[in-house]
């Protein structure tokens, strides 16, 4: 994870667009400017970044299902539960399951676990729209390769 760049997902370790599932590894950095403020003397991964981690993990799944022809933008977070504190250096596994591939929207169930224990979960809705420009699509494809989204899922 590079928190200050909103790079929450380190590596996609399992992705099955046919089964509508994804799993990703995310390692909380030992140090980040984020921890200087959240909180001084007691660093914790902010809950909003746990939600962002689930949203990005599910986002990679939606992108793969749609073969990167459209972009999911976070629209709604329902019943987010932050069940445990997450600290610097902690190893996280994020998972998402696509609940519905709607017309212009998608809904996923996301969760984060650490050492086999669930630390967060939420239902996440995205607006799914054409890429607003080629720059963003190219950047998303570059990032997809960095986090090891299989090449076969990058193109229609």
């Amino acid at each position, binding site marked *: 994870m590079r928190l200050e760049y909103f790079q929450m997902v380190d590596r996609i370790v399992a992705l099955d667009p046919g089964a509508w599932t994804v799993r990703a590894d995310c390692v909380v950095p030992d140090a980040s400017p984020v921890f200087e403020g959240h909180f001084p003397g007691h660093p914790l991964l902010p809950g909003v970044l746990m939600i962002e981690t689930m949203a990005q993990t599910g986002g990679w799944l939606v992108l793969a299902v749609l073969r990167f022809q459209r972009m999911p933008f976070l629209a*709604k977070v329902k019943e987010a539960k932050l069940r445990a504190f997450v600290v610097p250096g902690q190893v996280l596994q994020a998972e998402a399951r696509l609940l*519905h591939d*709607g*017309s212009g*929207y998608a809904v996923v169930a996301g969760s984060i676990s650490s050492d086999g224990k669930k630390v967060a979960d939420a239902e996440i*809705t995205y*607006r799914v729209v054409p890429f607003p420009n080629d720059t963003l699509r190219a950047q998303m494809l570059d990032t997809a390769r960095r986090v090891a989204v299989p090449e076969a899922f990058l193109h229609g």
Partner: protein
Amino acid sequence: MSSTFETVAGIIAETCDIPREKITPDSHAINDLGIDSLDFLDVAFAIDKAFGIKMPLEQWTQDVNEGKVSTDEYFVLGNLCANIDRLVAAKAA
């Protein structure tokens, strides 16, 4: 259509916290009931799930934006339910 309307009205009442008695087949989801686009995503998700369909919202939006139809065609609930019935019938065919 009447059972479709009852299901849709129930979904809207629960999802958007609108009193059920205010929801009629003549209600316009946006103009009369004040449902915004984000709440309508929730309604669409619940309708898609309840009827096992995928409402073509993007096509409907395009039709409205291109002036082919008015929003009444898709957002007046009686019309919406007729469209849902057509989608259900097409799926079963």
